[in-house]
């Protein structure tokens, strides 16, 4: 299924398949709004080990130009990346303020 980020709108029964089946990805559901804390990576100390990337339960860390980049649309702020970082270069910062 293509990672279409938009929601689907049905109008009536005729729009529906005969049985319940998925038609689009959950990428249409940005879970970034769940966060209270946001991970911030201090890239000067990052050794690009990708441990943060491998442990993310939400696949919310992308690898861009060999660096981990937090996908803030989806990051739930669980803090596993910060906890597991061997260089302790990820800080969990309060959202909002």
């Amino acid at each position, binding site marked *: 299924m293509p990672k279409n980020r938009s929601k689907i709108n049905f109008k009536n029964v005729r729009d529906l398949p005969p049985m*319940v089946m998925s*038609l689009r990805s959950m990428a249409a*559901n940005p*879970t970034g709004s769940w966060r209270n804390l946001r991970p911030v990576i201090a890239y000067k100390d990052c050794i690009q080990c990708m441990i943060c990337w*491998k442990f*993310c*339960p939400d696949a919310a860390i992308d690898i861009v130009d060999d660096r981990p980049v937090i996908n803030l649309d989806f990051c*739930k702020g669980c803090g596993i990346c*910060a*906890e597991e970082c061997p260089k302790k270069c990820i800080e969990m910062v309060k959202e909002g303020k």
Partner: protein
Amino acid sequence: MKPTLPLEEYMSPGHLACQGCGAGIAMRVTLKALGRNSIFTFPACCWTVIDGPFPYSTLEVPLLHMAFEATAATASGIKAAMKMLGRDDVIVSGWAGDGGTFDIGIQALSGAAERNEDIFYFCYDNEAYMNTGIQRSGATPYGAWTTTTPVRHFKREPKKSIDDIVAAHRVPYLATASVAYVEDLYKKIVKAKEIRGFKFIHILAPCPPGWKSKPEDSVKLARLAVQTGVFPLYEVEIGIYSQSIKSPNRKPVAEYLKLQGRFKHLTVEQVAEIQKMVDDRYAELEKRFQGN
């Protein structure tokens, strides 16, 4: 530095797992190991909800939601159909929680194991019926609080030895795994993919709400479980045991328990009881690792 796992994802972000969900890590790694040529079936479990409501889905491989008891039987049926349709190459997997494996799903599991069905059966074990709000299951360890084993009546029975039970079926492949050792889990699945017959993988998946632990501690807990010997990592291939990750100088079990609110009420004596249970079980396994 190169990542230790392949980059491609087979599940999208935006799913409904709690913050710090061990089951999320388990699925992500498993999908990387199995690849796109896979079909999954889930019983009622956390992943029923995690995958998302109609008309959306997180998984990018075909998935059949099914009833609670039926995972191994459903997977057997899917595999039989794939054989008949000339697609025996497709990997068929049942993916169930501990409830759907140890308790209500055990009959279908035993039947499929006995028939040596050519399927994967993954149990992601968060040690209680978490999806329905943290009720005890056969997988809940001794001493744990759950909503049906409140502190005054905490769980007295030890965790059911599902690995011994499945191994007794003389299945070609069984492995335990932990979401802290993702390369180990990945390697085991890639190895098992070459094996015909029933393949059982039991993955420890910490659950912050159910274990009353901090979301950021999920990987740490999955590591401590192995380092204390609470959840040893090993493989069993038709009755032959081999240890995957050795834990020499095992850490005391208290280090693992103290990070989880579900064990907070335990007395020093009860923690010592748990230490003894872990020691005894570990000694038993060591004998098997040495081929006694």
